[in-house]
């Protein structure tokens, strides 16, 4: 797609682009390049001297069982968040898609958690799950469960998964609902005439037709779980206990700031960048329409 | 007012595609010129070069005495009506018409006077405060015309302005455009692919094909004496019949074994040359079977009300004849007589008239 009619001005387009390009170069490319450079360096404790060490930082990472544990934690965490928020959202969207009274009202009541900051979502859920004062924690205790996310890694993980999924439901709900509404009524009617009952229609017609939306949402949710949940985790567990809720992004932050291991942190950043680029490439299928020059 | 003169105008696109291959003609001051041709023939590109919306790769375009090749569209003293109207969707009808004048710094009072005058002429006065979205197709068309009129330009350019309207409205607007152009007396160049629009509107008709001019003239001239097989086939509905034939040396051609008399002087002295015999469906007469007639095996009949189109085959070649309803049988074989003066002969290779 190209515009047929354009302006012939020579200098103007550069002036129009300048602010964005400048910010992009200074705050995106330069730091990214720095991260790559730094990942090949080792800095002494006082930051006085640096040494070029080739892939040592990377080798160090990949021989560190701690890194694999964080990787595993990230996989578990993002899978749990994705599956949970997607399935709840799909259920709600299917219900709201039926011609029921007040469907738009329900939509309004379901979408606003999108606006809640991840860190605030974390705080809200701590308030319910805190072992000494949380209302849900007390309920669990009464059921005989020794709920203690401060000491029990699994409990801590459940806690961050709940808070992160809770916040993401509204987003998924909106996209599922839009996807459902885009399915032509006639197709569903044809299936009904072919004798498919509602449950069967859902599995054989609606779900397959919804698969592009689902695929898109899976990618978006993984990206969300990787990056945007930092605030939730930091507010709820700080990565603990004993790093049980430390995701890759959290480790970059923790190693760089608290540990001062800038080289290792940079190497982790580079690996994360590779992951983002991979995810973006997958997502590209959906963005491609935007960039078909 | 001014004339428009094109001299060997060319358009070559980046990939080397030649959209317009050396076009020259002059549009007289105050006349209505229609550029017609199939899609992709370069007519729109040519119009856009006159408007200044496309660069001119070669040749010159003059408006009046001034060469405008390097002049901005806004300074060419033209106005243009677009196929999709190109009304500014966020501006009222009034502002749409006033916008160009404001950009030019025309005094407010004069803008107001001109816009109201145009609105009166075009019958859109009640809608001046509305947005284009709230108008019907025909009303939008009028506003687009109004935007052109208020400018009081030297030349009006129309780029298929009626093709987004339904059939009935199209006929109505066609008449209005013609009337308006007559009363304002502004030189107009009009692009269309619709040959009926082309025939009815134009003082001067330019038929284009493959980036070149096929023929220029009045509509009647082109219809009566098409210079090429392309023009002959393009103008006229239903289209002209073309029947393969062979030149004879006695002012006639052979169609199969039959001798058919043709207009005098056509292709003398080139006997044996294969040609295409062109006859318009309305120029064929139903007659008694005789040596000089052509037999049409009837396939089916289209009713037009006052007349009928009888479709069939002459020696296996598809042909059509137009007759008054009920004037001929609608089954079997018809004998068709040919009026020599109404025949056209074309060279099959070059398509040129003989």
């Amino acid at each position, binding site marked *: 797609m190209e515009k047929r009619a354009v302006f012939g001005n*020579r200098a103007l387009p550069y002036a129009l682009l300048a602010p964005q390009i400048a910010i992009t170069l200074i705050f995106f490319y330069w730091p990214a390049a720095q991260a790559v450079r730094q990942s090949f360096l080792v800095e002494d404790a006082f930051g006085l001297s640096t040494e070029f060490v080739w892939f040592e930082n990377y080798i160090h990472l990949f021989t560190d069982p701690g890194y694999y544990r964080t990787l595993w934690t990230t996989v578990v965490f993002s899978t749990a968040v994705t599956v949970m928020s997607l399935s709840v959202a799909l259920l709600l969207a299917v219900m709201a898609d039926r011609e029921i009274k007040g469907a738009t009202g329900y939509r309004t009541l379901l979408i606003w958690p999108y606006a809640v900051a991840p860190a605030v979502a974390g705080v809200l859920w*701590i308030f319910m799950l805190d072992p000494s004062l949380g209302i849900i924690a007390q309920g669990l205790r009464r059921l005989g469960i020794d709920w203690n996310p401060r000491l029990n890694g699994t409990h801590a993980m459940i806690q961050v998964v709940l808070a992160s999924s809770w916040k993401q439901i509204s987003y998924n709900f*909106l996209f599922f609902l839009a996807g459902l509404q885009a399915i032509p009524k006639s197709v569903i009617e044809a299936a009904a005439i072919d004798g498919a009952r509602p449950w069967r229609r859902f599995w054989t017609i609606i779900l397959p037709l919804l698969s592009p939306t689902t695929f898109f949402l899976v990618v978006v949710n993984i990206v969300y779980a990787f990056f945007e949940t930092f605030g939730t985790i930091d507010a709820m567990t700080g990565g603990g206990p004993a790093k049980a809720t430390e995701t890759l992004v959290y480790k970059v932050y923790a190693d760089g700031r608290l540990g001062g291991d800038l080289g290792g942190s940079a190497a982790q950043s580079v690996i994360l960048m590779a992951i983002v680029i991979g995810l973006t490439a997958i997502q590209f299928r959906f963005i491609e329409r935007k960039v078909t020059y | 007012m001014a004339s428009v003169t094109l001299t060997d105008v060319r358009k070559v696109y980046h990939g080397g595609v030649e959209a317009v291959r050396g076009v020259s003609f002059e549009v007289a001051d105050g006349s209505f010129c229609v550029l017609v041709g199939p899609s992709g023939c370069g007519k729109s590109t040519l119009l856009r070069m006159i408007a200044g919306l496309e660069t001119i790769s070669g040749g010159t375009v003059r408006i009046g005495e001034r060469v405008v090749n390097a002049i901005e569209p806004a300074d060419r003293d033209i106005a243009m009506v677009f196929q999709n109207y*190109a009304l500014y969707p966020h501006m009222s009808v009034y502002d749409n018409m006033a916008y160009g004048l404001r950009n030019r710094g025309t005094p407010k009072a004069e803008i107001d006077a001109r816009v109201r005058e145009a609105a009166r002429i075009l019958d859109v006065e009640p809608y001046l405060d509305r947005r284009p979205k709230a108008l019907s197709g025909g009303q939008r068309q009028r506003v687009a015309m109004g935007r052109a009129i208020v400018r009081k330009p030297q030349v009006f350019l129309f780029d298929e302005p009626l093709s987004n309207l339904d059939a009935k409205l199209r006929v109505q607007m066609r008449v209005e455009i013609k009337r308006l152009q007559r009363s304002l007396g502004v030189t107009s160049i009009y692009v269309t692919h619709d040959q009926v629009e082309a025939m009815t509107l134009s003082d001067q008709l330019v038929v284009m094909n493959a980036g070149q001019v096929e023929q220029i003239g009045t509509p009647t001239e082109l219809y009566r004496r098409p210079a090429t097989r392309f023009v002959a086939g393009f103008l006229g509905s239903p289209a002209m019949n073309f029947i393969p034939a062979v030149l004879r040396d006695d002012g006639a051609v052979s169609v199969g074994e039959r001798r058919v008399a043709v207009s005098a002087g056509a292709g003398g002295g080139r006997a044996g040359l294969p040609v295409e015999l062109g006859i318009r469906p309305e120029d064929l007469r139903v007659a008694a079977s005789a040596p000089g007639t052509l037999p049409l095996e009837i396939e089916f009949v289209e009713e037009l009300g006052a007349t009928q189109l009888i479709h069939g085959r002459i020696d296996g070649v598809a042909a059509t004849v137009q007759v008054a309803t009920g004037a001929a049988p609608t089954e079997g074989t018809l004998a068709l007589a040919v009026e020599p003066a109404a025949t056209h002969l074309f060279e099959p290779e070059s398509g040129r008239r003989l």
Partner: protein
Amino acid sequence: MVERRSLWGTLLPHLVLMAGVAVVAFPVYLAVVGSTHESAVIANGQMPLYPGGEAIDTYYRTLVIGPSRSTREPVAGMLLNSFLMAMIIAVGKIAISILSAYAVVYFRFPLRMAAFWTIFVTLMLPVEVRIYPTYKIVADLGLLDSMAGLTLPLIASATATLLFRQFFMTVPDELVEASKIDGAGPFRFFKDTLLPLSRTNMAALFVILFIYGWNQYLWPLLITTRDDMQTIVIGIKKMIVTSDALTEWQIVMATAVLAMLPPVLVVIGMQKLFVRGLVETEK
């Protein structure tokens, strides 16, 4: 739906949706309730499920005085910081990306595609993956603890540029041509035609970006060291780092409510634009 539904079939969606709304709303309800009780009641785990009578006192203290034991910073200032940051990010992003999209779509110039791809690739570089190098650059530029340092690195965005580019592509070419004939150059066309036509897109984008800016966490956490530069999302977290018994939960919850209020109101009040913005930016 196609066939007639039984009573159960009519009721089920409502029940499920109400349950969904309850799950979604409960944590927030609890926060509101929490902000109306005394600290001691909450700390004992004795908080009832209905609002108490301390609301005015709590919100006054939260906004004007601040928690006495942790940050000590009144939340009103944080709200202002958050508001400024969100506004600058949203308006800044829209401004620079509409200009760059205009350049890329409506002009032909050397390096046009290079510029486009330079911007496009940043889609793949969220701030989280380049956090320390960016921090160092902002520090070197002397922008720590400043609004500029807080917002500039978050302002460049491929998404907004792509959205505007997408929209500009759907604007008919004839509008530019009509403008040219009407004597409008690139400035006038932008101001008189393109900008008014983009209004809805800008508003939709604004809703999304305001929320994005308001909810930023990791970057402000690193870049702000002074308490008076804190945003509310950072401030609230700092209120609970101190050990359990010392946390003034009623104030934490009041702060949570205040932190949620502006973006949630934006979403509910501008629901149509919000949905549109969300769908368009992800398309």
